[in-house]
């Protein structure tokens, strides 16, 4: 399980949150909500190890999170290379040998587009390609920043299935969102903007 105690983080000169504590059990999910600029993305990057906490501790199963295997992180940007085909874009993510690239593409309904250069994909299809990396990741912790950005209703359902499978296997999902997500039983952490 993931436990955060007394987290505080700066973004530039501004303190975005402090004294933030939460715990997510294995198989659990946490929804980060709050207005723009309330620190959702900052918190996700901090959990991924891309940012730095000014104060507080992050524990994974009682040990520091930094010593746990890296999390699977989906940011605002899709990290899709336009010059490579959809399948080639997943090749680096598939190095762990967990699942196959055609399987991951099929899980997001991208099977027929495998050999298409990614520059021809629509914004929603690129987002699905970025989500397909999660299927290939062995990480128990998924950190998703607005995962449904640009997705159609059918793709949101596919994502719901992926999230449910991951949680059934004991995985943890933490996601920032403004839209309703198919995450039954998820707890909500509301981040508020605090002046000063």
């Amino acid at each position, binding site marked *: 399980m993931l436990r955060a105690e007394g987290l505080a983080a700066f973004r530039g000169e501004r303190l975005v949150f402090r004294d933030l504590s939460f715990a997510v059990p294995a198989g659990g999910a946490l929804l980060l909500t709050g207005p723009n600029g309330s620190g959702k993305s900052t918190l996700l990057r901090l959990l991924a*190890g891309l*940012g730095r906490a000014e104060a507080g501790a992050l524990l994974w199963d009682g040990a520091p999170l930094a010593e746990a295997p890296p999390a699977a992180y989906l940011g605002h940007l899709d990290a899709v290379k336009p010059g490579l085909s959809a399948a080639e874009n997943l090749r*680096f993510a598939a190095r762990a040998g967990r699942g196959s690239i055609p399987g991951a593409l099929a899980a997001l309904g991208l099977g027929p587009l495998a050999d298409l250069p990614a520059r021809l994909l629509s914004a929603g299809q690129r987002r699905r390609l970025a989500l397909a990396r999660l299927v290939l990741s062995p990480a128990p912790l998924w950190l998703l920043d607005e995962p449904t950005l640009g997705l159609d209703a059918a793709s949101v359902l596919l994502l719901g299935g992926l999230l449910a499978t991951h949680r059934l296997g004991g995985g943890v999902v933490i996601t920032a969102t403004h839209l309703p997500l198919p995450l039954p039983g998820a707890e909500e952490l509301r981040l508020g903007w605090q002046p000063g």
Partner: protein
Amino acid sequence: MKVFLALLGRELRLSLRHGADTLAALLFFFLAVSLFPLAIGPGPEMLGRIAPGIIWVCALLAALLPLDRLFGADFEDGSLDLLLLSGQPAAAIALAKAVAHWLTTGLPLLAGAAPLAVMLRRPPEAIPALLGGLLPGTMTLSLLGTLGAAIVLGARRGGVLLPLLVLPLATPVLIFGAAAADTVAGGLSARPHLLLLAAVLAAALPLCPLAAGAGLRAAVE
């Protein structure tokens, strides 16, 4: 190691797919060197004497060309975040980028230097010393360039800042490399200069990726 090779393979596939970008540095090298006979006249004595200097300076400038995009593209599309989360230390990612830069830029420059030296009427017996200096020299330039590219990442107008940062660091390489090529024509041994070049490479090999890794970490924070 497996991740390192996967990363290297990804870089090589990307540069193959963007072949025009990869060739640009080599074409710039050829064009820039060809300008010298036009500017200073085709006299073989003069050209043959200054050929190592021309080739070294042009190779140095050509190696700078692709550095701007070395991390820039990955930084802008979010790939750099994923690379840093691949479980590899940031220094290993920087080293893989430096190796990819050498394979796609340094090695073609090295291959192009010999015909250019012949074109500039360099005596054939003096060409091995030029290439022998360029081999460790281009490797060091790739490492220094990776360091510079990582440091200016995220800075406004980083592309302008980059040569200002890398060129002063590259001067020892240029001095020893050009001196190695020159001594042979004077009948002396190039060995001390080549050993000094190898020493610079040996120092840059661990230090540059470490510093570049720190730069990458700072850029994504």
